[in-house]
C-alpha cells in the first residue's frame, strides 16, 4: 500500500527529490515521497556496486516504474557501504515506506561539509511548492 505524503523533519533533502539520514560518518539515502509518487509503483532498482563511489549531484543508479525511468541523484559524495537488497528484490517497498524500509544506499561520507548545502524540510517543502 503506497504511503501517505510525508517529509520527516530529521532528514536532509536534495532538490532533485532525494533525502539523506546522517549517521556519524555515514548516511543512508533514498528518494522522497514526491519522487516515488510521481513515478508510480516502482518495478526496478538498478543500484551501484558496494564499494563504488558516488558523487554529490551526480547519477548513481536508476529506478523504474512501469511507465518511466528516473536517474537517482546522490545527495552527498561517498563510498557505497551497503545496497538495500530488499528494494532490489521488491522495488515497491520504496512506495510503501520511502523513508524507512525503502531506503536505497548506505554510504561512507567523503566530505561531511557537503551536508551544509542540503535543504532542511521547510526548504524542501518550498521547492515542492514552487515546482
Amino acid at each position, binding site marked *: 500500500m503506497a504511503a501517505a505524503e510525508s517529509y520527516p523533519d530529521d532528514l536532509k533533502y536534495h532538490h532533485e527529490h532525494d533525502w539523506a539520514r546522517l549517521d556519524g560518518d555515514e548516511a543512508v539515502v533514498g528518494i522522497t515521497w514526491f519522487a516515488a509518487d510521481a513515478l508510480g509503483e516502482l518495478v526496478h532498482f*538498478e543500484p551501484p556496486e558496494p564499494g563504488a563511489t558516488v558523487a554529490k549531484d551526480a547519477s548513481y543508479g536508476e529506478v523504474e516504474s512501469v511507465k518511466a525511468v528516473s536517474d537517482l541523484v546522490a545527495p552527498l559524495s561517498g563510498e557505497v557501504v551497503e545496497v538495500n537488497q530488499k528494494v532490489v528484490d521488491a522495488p515497491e517497498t520504496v512506495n510503501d515506506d520511502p523513508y524507512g524500509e525503502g531506503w536505497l544506499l548506505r554510504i561512507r561520507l567523503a566530505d561531511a561539509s557537503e551536508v551544509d548545502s542540503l535543504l532542511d524540510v521547510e526548504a524542501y517543502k518550498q521547492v515542492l511548492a514552487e515546482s
Partner: protein
Amino acid sequence: MAQTLQRTPLHDRHAALGARLVPFAGWEMPVQYEGVIQEHRAVRTDAGVFDVSHMGELEVEGPRAGELLQGLLSNDLDRIEPGQAQYTLLTNERGGIVDDLIAYRLDRCRYLLVVNASNRDADFRWLKEREIVGSDVRDVSDEYGLLAVQGPRAIEKLGLPPAEPFTFAEDQIDGVQVMVNRTGYTGEDGCELLCMAEDAGALWDGVLARGIVPCGLGARDTLRLEVCYPLHGNDITQETDPISAGLGWTCALGKEFTGVEVLRRVKEQGPERKLVAFVMGERGIPRHGMPIEGGGEVTSGTHSPMLDAGIGLGYVPAAQASPGSELTIDVRGKPRGAEVVRKPIYRREA
C-alpha cells in the same frame, strides 16, 4: 507552442477520480487512477473499464463502400457479414502499415472503422482521397464515446449475454443505448461499448456502479504487450510490413489491395527480420528504441505484472527469431540477456 489538448466527454469524471492525466496523441487522457499494476491485475482477474473515446471512428457507406475498402484494407472484408467485425490493416504502396483497425460491418453497404487516435486524421484523409463514386467516407469520431470493458467477469458484470468474439449487437446498459462490440486490446474476454458522446457520462457511471474498476492507458499498454498486440507507431509503422510483423494472417494476399505485390514478394522470399516477443532473463526493463545485439531493436517494452519480469517486442534478423533464441539487449549501456518466446507472452492457465 501551446497546443490545446482535446478532452473526452469523461474528462471531468477522470479528474474527480484523482486520475493522473497526461497528453496522449493530442488528447488529455488518464494514464492511471490508483496504480498501473493494480489496474492491470483487475483486468486479468475481474473487470476493468477504459475510456477510449479518443479513438477515431470513420463511417464508410454506399453501394461501392465494400469495393473501396477491399482495395485499401489487407484483410478480406467479404468474409464478414453484417453483425461481424474484423481486425485489418490500412497499407501503403510500399506494403507499410498506415494503421491497424477494426472494421465493423453495420449492414451490407455500411462499415464502421475504429482507428487509432493518433492516426485518425491521416486515415480519414487516406480514405477520402481514394473515395470512388458510390462510396462516402465520414469522420464521425466526435459523435461517439467508447468504453472498453475488459476482464473475465466483464460480460457478467454488465449483465450481457455471451457472444462470439468479433461480433457486435445493439443493446441497452443502464438505460443507455449502446453498440456492444466483442473486441478489445487486453487479451481478456469483454467488450467495447460505443455510445453517443452525450450518453458517455451516464454509461461510465453505470459501469463503475457495477463494480468495474477504472483503468488508465498505462494498464492498457502493459495488458496489450503481455498478449503481444502491436501498437501502431511503435511495433508497426508506415515503414514496417505486416509479414515481418507477424500479421500475415490479416493479409488476404489472393486479393488486390494497396501494396499487395510488395507483400507477396516478402512472403515468398521470407522476411529479413521479424517482430518477436521476448522475456528478460536478467533484471532490467526493455524500452522502445533500445538496440538488440546483432542488428535488432526493441519496439515496445515494459515490466510485466503477471510474469514480474521485463518483457518486450522487437525486430531481430530472421536467424535470431526462433523461440528459444538468446538475445542481448543494450539497457542504457548495460548488456542484458533475454529469450525469444512464443506469442503471446502471457496466457491464462487453463
